[in-house]
């Protein structure tokens, strides 16, 4: 019975200063989101900007806080496309039917 890599994967992390910068960027982007909520924007545009900011925030968390940046490329190429594909398939159904309903309403 092998130990199957126990103890592997603990790698030197980035410096505390880097983590602080990432955190400040996340707080700043949160502030931008709140600001966007109080300016008159068309809902579709606002949703697109908010989701774009959320994806950037998620990227900062995944790559720096969750250390994916420092993992082997094989893990990134395995995890990210699979997740994006599955969520994309859900969104495909969602958008198709949502636009149909919007057209029916108008």
């Amino acid at each position, binding site marked *: 019975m092998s130990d199957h*890599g126990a*103890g*592997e*994967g*603990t790698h030197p*992390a980035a410096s505390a200063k880097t983590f602080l910068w990432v955190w400040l960027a996340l707080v700043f982007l949160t502030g931008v989101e709140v600001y966007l909520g109080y300016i008159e924007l068309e809902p579709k545009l606002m949703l697109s900007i908010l989701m774009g900011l959320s994806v950037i925030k998620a990227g900062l968390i995944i790559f720096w*806080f969750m250390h994916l940046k420092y993992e082997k490329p094989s893990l990134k190429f395995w995890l990210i496309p699979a*997740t994006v594909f599955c969520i994309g398939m859900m969104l495909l159904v969602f958008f198709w039917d949502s636009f149909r309903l919007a057209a029916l309403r108008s």
Partner: protein
Amino acid sequence: MHDVKQDAMSSVWSGGASPFAMGSKKLGMWLFIVSDSLTFSALLIAYSYARLNSPNWPRPFPFSPSIVFSTIMTVVLLASSLTMVMGVAAAARGDRGTTVKWILATMFFGTTFIVLHMREWFHLMDEGLRLTSNPWGSPLFGAVFFGVTGLHMTHVAIGVIYLGIVSLGFGRGKFTPEDVEVSGLYWHFVDLVWMFVFPLVYIMSISPK
């Protein structure tokens, strides 16, 4: 030469290799995170679908207390991720005392998030929000609001308990730095999910002037 190649192959197929150069616990946590991200995606897409299907979808969140509270909650959760990543770095250095302190700080922020969120829930319930009804519009609002934020809060509560167990075990020398890193992955994922819940549920539902 042939035997060496055969040994390597059988080793891979019997689980003797780690293709991503990480332990099985960490790989397992990544797999859990992928599956859980699909759960939350499905829930948030269902929320968006219900919202688009309802012409009278309510936008009940005023600046104070709802947006102020939810923004503070977001910053608190982000702060907990910062303390957690510091804890993981301290664990990698082998500094057990500092690691436990950072994890305790993370648990404090996590608990603060839950308290603030419960306060927000009670405030909305006082205004008449229920699972199946509300005074503002589509009755589906309560179900999806409590469903999405409730599942997230459950994850935060489980995370606080999980971190408590890990800090205790790591402080006593029973757990390894990898265990701390794995618990950190879970905690950051909980933070990551909120980065989508906050704009979709709160910012997109700010009450009109």
